[in-house]
């Protein structure tokens, strides 16, 4: 799929419209994971809009988003960056063999208090 088609697919899945973004950076200011991200939420918006998708698809930033929706709630333009990040992440993990988390990874991550909720949530976000 070329990047124009991929961009359309991302927009369709997310229901988001990056053209509305005005680069005010409020989403990035609200993001609890800002410091852990190579590409910050406002950059996701711009890069999706530009069709500059390859760096995003390969970036670890896809797996730092908490889906906490602070970016969407505080956006003055209704852009909802987390939806775009999620749509790009799905493009990455839906490729064959590209699950970001596998059942084999789980035993090493367990501790006696870890709630099931953490495991199912991580699978839902990081795998197809």
């Amino acid at each position, binding site marked *: 799929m070329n990047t124009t088609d991929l961009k359309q697919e991302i927009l369709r899945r997310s229901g988001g419209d990056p053209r509305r973004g005005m680069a005010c950076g409020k989403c990035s200011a609200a993001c609890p994971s800002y410091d852990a991200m190579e590409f910050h939420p406002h950059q996701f918006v711009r890069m999706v809009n530009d069709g500059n998708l390859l760096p995003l698809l390969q970036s670890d930033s896809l797996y730092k988003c908490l889906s906490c929706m602070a970016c969407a709630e505080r956006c003055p333009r209704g852009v909802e960056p987390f939806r775009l990040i999620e749509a790009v992440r799905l493009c990455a993990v839906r490729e064959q063999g590209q699950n970001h988390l596998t059942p084999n990874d789980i035993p090493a991550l367990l501790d006696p208090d870890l709630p099931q909720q953490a495991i199912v949530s991580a699978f839902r976000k*990081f795998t197809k």
Partner: protein
Amino acid sequence: MKVTYFPGCTLKTKATELDLYARRCAEALGVTLEEAEDWQCCGGVFTASRDEIATKLSSVRVLQTAFEKDQPLVTVCSACHNVVKQTNHALQTDSAFAEAVNRYMQNPVPYVGQTRVLHYLELLRDEIGFDAIRDKVTDALKGRRIAAYYGCLLLRPSGVMRMDDPENPRIMEDLLTAMGATPVLWAQRNECCGGYIAMEDRALALSESEAILKNAAAAGADTVVTACPLCRYNLQKVAGNVKVVYLTELLAEALGIKEEPQ
């Protein structure tokens, strides 16, 4: 009053006290939580992508169960609540999604989000009423300075959750006051604890939870209260002297029906 109750996966395992005291407190306040039959895990997080259908069907099933019983659907866990309410909203507003769901489920009567979904807090505020709670509490929580922690999932997206003001909520503070405790004012109450990122980047989850706990402690809180098992897990890792407890445990304490630790 009887309601359909969706406990969710973690309330049956690591967070049994959240479940136990949700039932007991509701009963003490005149509401019976009838557990939905054969419910399935909600998946923990809502997938925002519109082309995800199958991952939302467990929520659809429990919503339909409540619809068939003509009861509101009550959840306690913030995550379950978020997933179920967002799914219900998607059925109301996204006709392509609703069509795909109903065709798959072969529903004779289309389910398009008719069920009223209530978080336990909304049950307390809107159905039982905080005044009725105030009449029933003991002075067990008197003098306790408690920080209400909302996190992300109770309030956002606010247009769908419609529980409270997403940036200046008061539902938990009002409940704390009704329970005889002193709610503290603090800035980080609606910031994310890190959630499932604990599976991907433990240090990141810890640093996010640490910022929240520090802020609660600086506001003079002796306790942080949450409705979410994952929030509690993350916050407890960095809690120090501050207690992190479930909403329903605290309510049971206020109502004088909490069991003493063995």
